[in-house]
């Protein structure tokens, strides 16, 4: 099958194409160069006046795993208020903040997204995360395995294990859990909470292992660098949500010792203590630090006003935040000497000073970080807001007068404390394409997507040109997944299933003996039952793996 997308305006930042009019050719599942004139083109889409980008990639969205299912279980009202009936093409489901897996897949595709990454895969729960993502149709998926609160790693660091041992453990974890990256959440803090510690700043000492979060970040970011894993350490920093935490965030950036590091949902980590309420924006300090440090990338975790649910591995912070639960119910869990989770429903209100300032801080960060290749568009779904608010967020970034209109409506004290009204920047379509396509593909090491050059997977989104970017991005005209037309006019036209994206750095298999001994002594699962094989992914879990290469220049 050979198809032609003719005459659209193309935004493909990975190949420096900025709105030029051109043609694209797709053979089966791939984008190909212009075929010879003798070849038959089976289908031509005349797209004059339309906009084409690669399929969008969400590098941080909680779409699968035990904590998401806890949120669904705890919030039947979220399902009841957001019903999605069955159609001829799609299964039934529902939910807004914690949608069913099927609903999440359909909604992502209907917004032009073709790959999504679950950022908090607990190794003990990796099977479930992959099973849920396998039941999330339309999109390719992947996960980041959580380390840095597991007693095994903390013990290794405390005992002064060689960096090589830690590297082997990290690489083994990636293989055993079928993940593409490593995330650390509140480094050491989730573990310290199990010893009844209620805070652990970057240079505080863990009450049992006598190590610091800084050491954990340093060791893990070095491990990923030395293993040549494309995605840098994905860090949910210490002190989430605590006024004054921007200092912890800056310290965490520096803990990477100049090696690549990704700080996630940084909006929640950019708070100062100025003003009468001792809560202020430190977005300027954070943005300046990001601008100065080429090794740092961030995603924002923008909040939007309305009801959502916060889902996090950070039991320490979530337990502290349960007093804000709305409705008033919450769940926390300590898990398998690995980490934990906390699920707290939340309603962000525009007239509330703190919430309004959080909203402004997120936007300030987007607008003050200069390089769109190092700032990613996320709401930390569903923590800041459900992913379905992305089109609205894109409009906020692209349309200054719209932004200022909304700024005028929020809590006036928050509005007057924010720099937002003075920020002139408006994102271009090219920059939106960078932050939602080209940059996430690059930072995850996915050379087969996020761009439109020959050889790329034919994940393509076609938009109607529209004055209002929100309307444009909410309802693409066409979406292709691996060359198949799956969405027409913002509605699913063909259900498909995706694959799981992984990386496989090499390691010394001798590490398995060491891990095996630990499992035998302390664990309640045996090691052979812990690791997930490729066959199990394909035949049992239902999402075959697609292995992406590590960087070639391994140090």
């Amino acid at each position, binding site marked *: 099958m050979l198809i032609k997308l003719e005459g659209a305006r193309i935004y493909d930042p990975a190949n420096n194409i900025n709105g030029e009019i051109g043609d694209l050719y797709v053979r089966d599942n791939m984008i190909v160069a212009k075929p010879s004139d003798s070849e038959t083109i089976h289908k031509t889409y005349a797209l004059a006046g339309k906009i084409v980008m690669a399929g969008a990639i969400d590098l941080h969205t909680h779409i699968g795993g035990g904590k998401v299912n806890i949120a*669904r279980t705890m919030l039947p009202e979220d399902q009841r208020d957001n019903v999605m009936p069955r159609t001829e093409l799609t299964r039934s489901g529902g939910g807004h903040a914690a949608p069913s897996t099927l609903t999440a897949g359909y909604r992502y595709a209907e917004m032009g997204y073709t790959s999504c990454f679950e950022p908090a895969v607990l190794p003990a729960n990796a099977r479930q995360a992959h099973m849920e993502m396998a*039941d999330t149709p339309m999109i390719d998926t992947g996960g980041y395995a959580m380390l840095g609160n597991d007693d095994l790693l903390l013990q290794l660091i405390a005992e002064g294990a060689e960096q090589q041992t830690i590297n082997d453990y990290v690489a083994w974890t990636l293989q055993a859990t079928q993940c593409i990256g490593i995330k650390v959440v509140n480094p050491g803090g989730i573990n310290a909470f*199990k010893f009844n510690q209620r805070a652990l700043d970057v240079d505080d000492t863990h009450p049992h292992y006598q190590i610091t979060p800084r050491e954990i970040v340093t060791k893990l970011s070095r491990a990923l660098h030395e293993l040549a894993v494309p995605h840098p350490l994905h860090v949910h920093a210490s002190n989430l949500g605590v006024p004054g935490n921007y200092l912890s965030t800056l310290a965490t950036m520096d803990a990477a010792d100049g090696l690549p590091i990704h700080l996630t949902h940084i909006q929640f980590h950019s708070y100062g203590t100025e003003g009468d309420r001792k809560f202020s924006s430190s977005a300027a300090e954070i943005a300046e630090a990001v601008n100065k440090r080429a090794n740092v990338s961030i995603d924002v975790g923008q909040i939007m006003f309305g009801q959502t649910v916060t889902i996090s591995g950070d039991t320490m912070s979530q337990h502290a935040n349960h007093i804000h639960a709305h409705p008033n119910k919450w769940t926390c*869990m300590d898990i398998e000497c690995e980490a934990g989770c906390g699920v707290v429903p939340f309603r962000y209100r525009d007239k509330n000073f703190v919430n309004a300032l959080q909203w402004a801080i997120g936007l300030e960060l987007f607008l003050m970080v200069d390089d769109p290749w190092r700032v990613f568009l996320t709401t930390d779904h569903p923590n800041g807001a459900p992913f379905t608010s992305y089109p609205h967020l894109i409009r906020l970034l692209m349309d200054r007068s719209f932004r200022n209109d909304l700024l005028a409506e929020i809590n006036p004290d928050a509005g007057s404390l924010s720099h937002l009204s003075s920020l002139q920047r408006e994102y271009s379509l090219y920059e939106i394409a960078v932050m939602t396509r080209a940059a996430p593909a690059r930072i995850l090491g996915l050379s087969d997507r996020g761009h439109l050059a020959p050889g790329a997977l034919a994940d393509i989104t076609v938009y109607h040109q529209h004055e209002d970017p929100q309307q444009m991005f909410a309802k693409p005209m066409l979406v292709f997944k691996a060359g198949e037309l799956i969405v027409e006019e913002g509605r699913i036209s063909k259900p498909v299933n995706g694959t799981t994206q992984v990386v496989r750095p090499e390691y010394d298999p001798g590490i398995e003996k060491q891990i095996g001994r630990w499992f035998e002594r*302390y664990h*309640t699962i045996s090691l052979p039952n812990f690791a997930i094989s490729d066959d199990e992914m394909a035949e049992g879990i239902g999402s075959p793996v697609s292995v992406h290469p590590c960087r070639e220049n391994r140090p």
Partner: protein
Amino acid sequence: MWNNKIDQTTHTVTCPSCGLSCDDLQIETNNGHLKSMRNGCDKAHAFYQTAFSNIDKSPLIDGTPSSLDEAIERSAELLQESSSPLFAGLATDVNGMRSILSLADCCGATLDHMNGDASLRNLRVVQDSGWFTTTFTEVRNRADLILLVGSQCMERFPRLVERVLHPTETLLDQARERKLVLLGPWGSDPLPEELTHLNTLTIPLDLERLGDAVAMLRALIAGRPVDLDRPDVGDGDGLKALASELKAAKYSVICWSAAEFDLPHSDLLIQGLAELAKELNNESRSAALPLAGTQADITSNQVCTWQLGYPLRTSLQRGYPQHDPHLNRWQDLIERNESDFLLWVSSLSPDASPPPCDLPGVVLGHPGMAFEALPAVYIPVGVPGIDHQGHWYRSDAVCSLPLGKLREIGLPAVSHVVRLLHQKLRSNSACLHGGAAC
């Protein structure tokens, strides 16, 4: 781990006979026969021996042996005639449940698990207030005080003490001197043997009085005034001492099995236990360990929750999921004649047969199943972990373990049979909504 090979000898077999899901069973087979077995409890031995002694089963249509194709054909006819099908039992693995949900979506079925009453006692607490829970490895290595509520945890989960509550080795020193407090209907009988050499304290109390005792514990911990001599809570001084110990513990665990609490409004008792654990976390560390998972109740609820957004007792009759813990109780739907077809799925135990009822019924059952009244169609299915591979959740709802394949005697997996049934409906154009999603 995952292939279609039969494991003749393996040392890490996951046992699905209860929610503990011990995965250290050593099983040796020889051409489909069980040769030897180590590490399993009595329940596990019975589970494997029963399954391995049941072979050579063909489907039955109205009691007459038939082929699988004929049984599927007849099942599809019965399902097509139904306007309000009920899919219950649901003791199956993850892929079995996935196929059942897909079929249910197509034909507007209502879904409930055979353990629905027990599951809902816990689920309603999560829906109403949430809880603070923990998992087996955490308890094993960290707990210094364990409060066991009720008296059946060990009976229902036979290796609980060995695997979780009191292992030979723990990561942290604090767990080595752990104390077990038994609060519940412990009579004058001696304690179970595995508890006798441990540091235990028993506070005997009838099940019906547990709710009041837990309320008193919470009041004591919160420092509210209480009357310790209230006769309805038994040993007031014992509870006062327990409250002090819970507050002083480094990591206390509150453990129960909801199935034991078969009494009116026991969700309120469970809510009290859950709130107790939450409140202890204001000052120290504590977590709840609700025990469940037997007959795949956690497994089927997990899959239902991620695919439909709701746990079980959910109906798809209107073309979208509707959850109602009261209206969708399977026993009531049968009794009130609110369903006109029953698909009963029970692949783990020969004893969990469908209730005798007048509904046209299809049973996907354990090969050794005995019936009080034969259903219209009985399709013997493979036992997960013996006849086919699969996934199974243990009690804490975090760890889903792989189940292996130990023999091949032609018994199909639930997922396979349900897919055939679904295909048959589709080829008969009998799905409610039609289209590619069927």
